[in-house]
């Protein structure tokens, strides 16, 4: 809630306060920009931030042949084959899977989860303060494969990752089952061993061997605990080709006072004397966004077990309806002190349904009476 001022009255004093604040901020920014490390820019400019070609191990995923001339009988036969192959299986209980009973210790790395960012919802804390929460929908995650540490350390990526440290295992998790007709045979073969419908999204999660899960294990919103901190990994919003003002925060030029064609341009790009060339990494217009980023330390404030929804305090990289990965946080001071559902959450065997909607203690539950301060 805010109070706005009448047009005629005390607008001057309000403007004066606004200008003072703006001046303060620009002064501090200028001081920061005086220390310009060319060396660091040069090394960072060599880092490849995005690629458009797929990696060498990539398996062609989508079925390219769209106009196959098959008769309707054969189409029906294909659908029958798919039905037979992926017959409905009963929901997998914890007791069905042979999971070794392992102990949780603070150094355990659990699996992560693939989710979709379905938007933002505003909630309120118990003192009336508004909080912006991102709503994450945990899709139908299933473990596809577990690669033990010794095997993973031999792969190209594993060797690089564990060059000078103890190797860890790798869990391949898939989400969003869909029609096998849409995918190529090579892609469907990834799921043949497990007997699952091919998944649209796949992700690798690095886990310690004690948090390993057998194939076909479902991962749900219950995998996480209320109040824990999570890291969310996603691809940022794609802004396309952007100018220097939006991309790098340049000031541009004056809007009026006779300025000719210099409103949103970069200005000078070098000194002319020192080195007499443009340094690599010079900030210029170009493609902005669509980069893989982590937002770390986001607190889980609400879990809905029925719809598999997690509400996370803060925002998450990427636009609405984009896919993200959620991990237990890597920030040292916000890690677990007590054991979480290890290696993952399973609904209780005796059929008692879990609490549908779990809220953090700091949040105001909507059905409860209004806050009186």
């Amino acid at each position: 809630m805010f109070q706005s001022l009448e047009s005629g009255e005390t607008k001057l004093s309000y403007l004066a306060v606004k200008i003072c604040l703006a001046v303060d901020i620009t002064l501090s920014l200028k001081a920061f920009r005086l220390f310009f490390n060319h060396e660091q820019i040069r090394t960072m400019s060599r880092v490849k931030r995005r690629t458009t070609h797929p990696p060498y191990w990539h398996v062609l995923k989508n079925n390219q042949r769209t106009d196959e001339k098959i008769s309707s009988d054969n189409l029906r036969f294909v659908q029958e084959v798919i039905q037979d192959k992926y017959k409905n299986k009963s929901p997998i209980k914890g007791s069905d899977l042979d999971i070794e009973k392992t102990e949780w210790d603070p150094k355990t790395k659990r699996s992560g989860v693939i989710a979709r960012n379905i938007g933002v919802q505003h909630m309120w804390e118990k003192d009336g303060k508004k909080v912006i929460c991102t709503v994450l929908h945990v899709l139908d995650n299933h473990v596809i494969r577990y690669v033990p540490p010794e095997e993973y350390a031999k792969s190209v990526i594993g060797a690089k990752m564990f060059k000078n440290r103890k190797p860890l295992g790798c869990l391949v998790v898939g989400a969003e089952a869909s029609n096998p007709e849409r995918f190529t045979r090579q892609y469907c073969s990834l799921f043949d061993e497990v007997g699952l419908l091919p998944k649209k999204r796949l992700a690798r999660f690095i886990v310690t061997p004690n948090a390993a899960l057998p194939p076909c294990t479902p991962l749900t919103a219950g995998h996480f605990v209320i109040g824990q901190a999570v890291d969310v990994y996603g691809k940022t919003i794609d802004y396309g080709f952007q100018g220097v003002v939006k991309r790098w925060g340049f000031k541009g030029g004056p809007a009026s006072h006779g300025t000719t064609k210099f409103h949103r341009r970069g200005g000078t790009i070098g000194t002319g004397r020192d080195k007499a060339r443009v340094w690599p990494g010079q900030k210029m217009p170009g493609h902005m966004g669509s980069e893989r980023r982590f937002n770390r330390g986001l607190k889980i404030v609400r879990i809905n077990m029925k719809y598999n929804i997690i509400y996370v305090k803060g925002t998450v990289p990427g636009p609405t309806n984009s896919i993200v990965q959620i991990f237990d946080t890597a920030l040292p001071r916000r890690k677990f002190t007590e054991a979480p559902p290890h290696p993952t959450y399973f609904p209780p065997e005796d059929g008692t349904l879990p609490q549908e909607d779990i809220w953090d203690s700091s949040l105001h539950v909507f059905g409860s009476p209004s806050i009186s301060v």
Partner: protein
Amino acid sequence: MLRRAVLQTFRQGLAQSFFKRYAVSLTETTVTHQPIETSDEAGERTVPTQKTGDESGNTVVVAPPEFRFIYPEFLPDPAMERRNRLREKLERMDMLQRRSVIEIPEFYTGSIMAVTVADANSPNKFARFVGICIQRGGSGLRAWFILRNVVDKQGVEILYEMYCPLIQKIEVLRLERRLDESLLYLRDALPEYSTFPMDMEPERRLNNSVVPINPLKVKLRPRPWLERWERQNLQGVEDLNLPQRFYDRAEKVAKPWEKYDLMLHYRKTIPAEEQEKIFAEVHSQLQQQELKRKLRRRRGSDNEY
């Protein structure tokens, strides 16, 4: 000439028929001479819920069409990039939960309302503000409205978020509508049009079924103004008495083709079929809440005697 006139009327007729069939926008066709029935009337009608049959012969519960005006914040933001059906459904569930605790009455721009809010800095911990609703917007839990009043010759506007748990009570002291959907011009009007006593009593309406439209034409102060009111096609403002050059410039800058742009209006609104689905979903719970409140009110009035 005749052909052009015929084409024009044809196009207008097309646009109008489109809106009659898919009358979804609050702004365009609904600010007409037809008064809107209130929820009281809807509840007291002999057939409160319209049960239409579908092809299989099963009855499908459909909410009354007034819900679109009484509960406009249940409709989501039409921008397609940010829409997600599951999140909207969860948000509606939360909204209904909040509405079960506090009564958020039916109101429109131009209604005079009083809002009581928990305020730590007030002497008795609650702050009550009376004002005229000049604008309302937002969808879902972000729905808001602005109340305006003139207190001690100082104009004050407060934006309230409808679902904020700090709000203790929302009363509608006078339920009426104005000729415009947004009364922001009251900022440039004479102060008496925005002044309402803080201890105003709720007014009882004689005719409960229809929300009256107040055809008041407001007098503006002399220029300078905060906005170019002559360009905004305001109905509730007296003749602005500006030099002709203002109106000429307004004509040059105007976009008269926008009212024929069907895709523009389609993108700005939720389709009628989806609106029906949404209101059918929340309809039964809202009706239950209304009934409970009515019973409580009747029991309260009985207890007085």
